[in-house]
């Protein structure tokens, strides 16, 4: 698997691989959607509104995980000048950004019928909005700074500073009084969510994860081709 991310290997991947990856993630997402929208039961309090969770939670998880990865990659690229990490982070950014937007919008759609408001400035919601802005700043720094090395430096700093926000998002619901409920699924405790609802959630997460991987591989290829075009590909060695 690690071989996959080596620069040359990615171009040796046949179209067949992408074809099958596409088939697999699409079928998992369709299966997950059927599970979550049709088969899974209503919630005893929320009714059908609970189905929003099957999209909201996987997107939130992925947006946090992707930003954490970008942050770690940025640290490595900034300190050790292992530039392939920069390319990882750069390729991941739009994917995470999309997931963070999905998370905020579906959360807001869920909040209206459940809490009685689309938006409120509690710690979880505010820190999540901040994450969306970190994604925007990261992507914009690549758009507006034309020199690769300058852009690399500033975008990495943004990602590293943004990394501090990740534990704040994760633990905001435990540290402070928030309107947002605490996590239902914790590593240390049995989940506070019934198995018939946990299964579609995990299937959807897996499907979304494969989708993210699919887009990442395509974007990673594109970024390397761009470097080649700019005659910068020697920096990766």
């Amino acid at each position, binding site marked *: 698997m690690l071989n996959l991310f080596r620069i040359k290997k990615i171009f040796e991947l046949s179209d067949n691989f992408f074809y099958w990856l596409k088939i697999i993630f699409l079928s998992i997402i369709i299966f997950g959607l059927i599970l979550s929208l049709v088969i899974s039961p209503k919630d005893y309090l929320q009714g059908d509104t609970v189905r929003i969770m099957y999209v909201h939670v996987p997107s939130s998880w992925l947006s946090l995980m992707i930003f954490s990865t970008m942050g770690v990659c940025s640290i490595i690229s900034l300190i050790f000048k292992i530039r392939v990490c920069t390319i990882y982070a750069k390729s991941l950014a739009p994917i995470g950004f999309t997931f963070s937007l999905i998370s905020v919008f579906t959360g807001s759609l869920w909040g209206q019928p459940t809490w*009685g408001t689309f938006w409120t400035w509690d710690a979880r919601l505010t820190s999540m909005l901040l994450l969306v802005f970190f994604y925007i700043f990261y992507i914009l720094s690549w758009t507006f700074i034309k020199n690769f090395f300058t852009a690399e430096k500033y975008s990495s700093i943004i990602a590293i500073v943004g990394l*501090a926000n990740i534990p704040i998002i994760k633990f905001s619901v435990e540290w402070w*009084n928030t309107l947002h409920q605490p996590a239902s699924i914790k590593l240390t405790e049995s989940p506070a969510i019934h198995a018939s609802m946990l299964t579609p959630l995990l299937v959807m997460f897996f499907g979304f994860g494969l989708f993210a991987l699919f887009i990442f591989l395509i974007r990673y290829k594109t970024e390397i081709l761009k470097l080649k075009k700019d005659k910068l590909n020697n920096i990766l060695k």
Partner: protein
Amino acid sequence: MSPASKKRLNYFLIAIIVFLIVGKFVLNSLQGNTVYFFSPSDLSKLSEKPNGLVRVGGLVKNGSIQEKQKDSIYSFIITDLNNDVYVEYKGLLPNLFQEGKGAVIEGVLKDKKFLIAEKILAKHDENYMPPEIAEALKKNGNWKATYGK
């Protein structure tokens, strides 16, 4: 590791340490400002009643919701099991607002025990289950008070 990398790593570690120390102070001072809502006990500890809009959060006390005739004025008690706050509200209640469940009430305090509500937010907890399971839990007596009625 090249000497240049080593130097950058050192700068980075120093930056992290400085950042952690500053972050600790910021978090400490934020503690007072990031409260989304007060609990009734928080309120009773305050020496003066806060002016303007405040949010009070807690459980809606069982059997406390009363509807006053005609004007759809509701009154109920928000409790954290130690202290109570009496709330009056005119308007529609959210669907998930019910006795025994969490709610956050935004409004103006008349005194430390009496809140005129302007907005009611139902708080949802981390428990998700199908209605049949809820029924079963109630039947076999494994129902927890925090699950609601």
